[in-house]
């Protein structure tokens, strides 16, 4: 009798364990298959990465040719598609003029929001205000407040900026 009880007890424990495993798998599966969840995650990721890239694209250390080169490489890393192509095309000329000018800019995104997100095509629209602290080679530093509209695209390497427009007065649409 004791043996049978123990025997059945063993099976019961195993059954419970199997149930726990099944429930865990079900819960995980539900979370994986949740469209709203993946959409919300994509939104948060796009916003975080978009902010970072926008700051990068407004930052350049112009103190030396090497630093300008590093800055331009960072711009390329933050961009994709048309913006990336354009930056790559003008890179040599940019490097020359930026080194000659010697100004240093540091961009900081003060506020940002996504206005649209298409998870299927992997594109998002972002608006942001950026404070750009510009330190000229000679003279006093000043801060410019800029506002931008950016189109983000999802790449294998995360969200990148595909197009960037400064939204000036008069809409800038």
């Amino acid at each position, binding site marked *: 009798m004791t043996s049978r009880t123990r025997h059945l007890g063993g099976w019961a*424990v195993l059954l419970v*364990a199997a149930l726990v495993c099944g429930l865990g798998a079900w819960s995980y599966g*539900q979370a994986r298959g949740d469209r709203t969840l993946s959409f919300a995650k994509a*939104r948060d990721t796009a916003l975080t990465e978009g902010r970072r890239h926008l700051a990068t694209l407004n930052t350049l250390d112009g103190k030396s040719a090497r630093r300008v080169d590093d800055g331009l490489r960072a711009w390329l890393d933050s961009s994709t598609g048309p913006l990336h192509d354009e930056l790559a095309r003008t890179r040599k000329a940019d490097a020359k003029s930026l080194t000659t000018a010697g100004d240093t800019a540091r961009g900081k995104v003060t506020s940002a929001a996504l206005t649209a997100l298409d998870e299927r095509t992997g594109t998002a629209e972002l608006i942001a205000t950026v404070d750009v602290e510009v330190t000229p080679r000679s003279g006093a530093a000043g801060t410019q407040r800029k506002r931008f509209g950016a189109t983000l695209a999802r790449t294998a390497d995360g969200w990148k900026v595909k197009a960037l427009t400064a939204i*000036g007065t008069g809409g800038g649409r």
Partner: protein
Amino acid sequence: MNSDVAPDPDLGPGAEETGTRAPDPHDGADVVRRRWPRVLGALLTVALLATGGALYAEGRQLRDTSATANRALTDAEATTRVTGDVSSALSKIFSYGPGATATTRAAAKEVLAGKALQQYAALFGQVERQSADQKLTLTTGVVRAGVTRLTDDSAHLLVFLDQVHERRGRAPTTASAQLTVVAELRDGRWWIVEIGST
């Protein structure tokens, strides 16, 4: 239940025998053979529990409350609605003509509440005087607006505005403004409760 019939032929006899008989100390190999189904069962149990627990934890992590609690864009309808309501409210309260500041003031009471209403009242007192003196007309339009955070009854927005100032007899000038807005849903309507500059 019939005690002769074990639920599993592999596990059954071994478990039964170890239970009923003392293990033979002289036959170590036999003991090991009798024990392995139980060891296997225990290992399987642990493995199943661990897998279940890990999957559940992973699912919980995926559900990460901060991402799902924010319904900005995930609830497209609510996002569009709050954006529209706040945009039209801002255009209304930041637009006025020399003789029509009372209309604007009245409109503000319809869309502003709490701290925003106080901020606005302080600001608008100056504006009213200026507007009357200088024949100033201000027209505000929303250029872009995005929702950063949205819950059932509160929303945080970033709004880009263009403001056209017209002074009688002079060319109009346009200025841009960026505001962060906190809105609350009360009685089925979105009220602006806080306005800040970015």
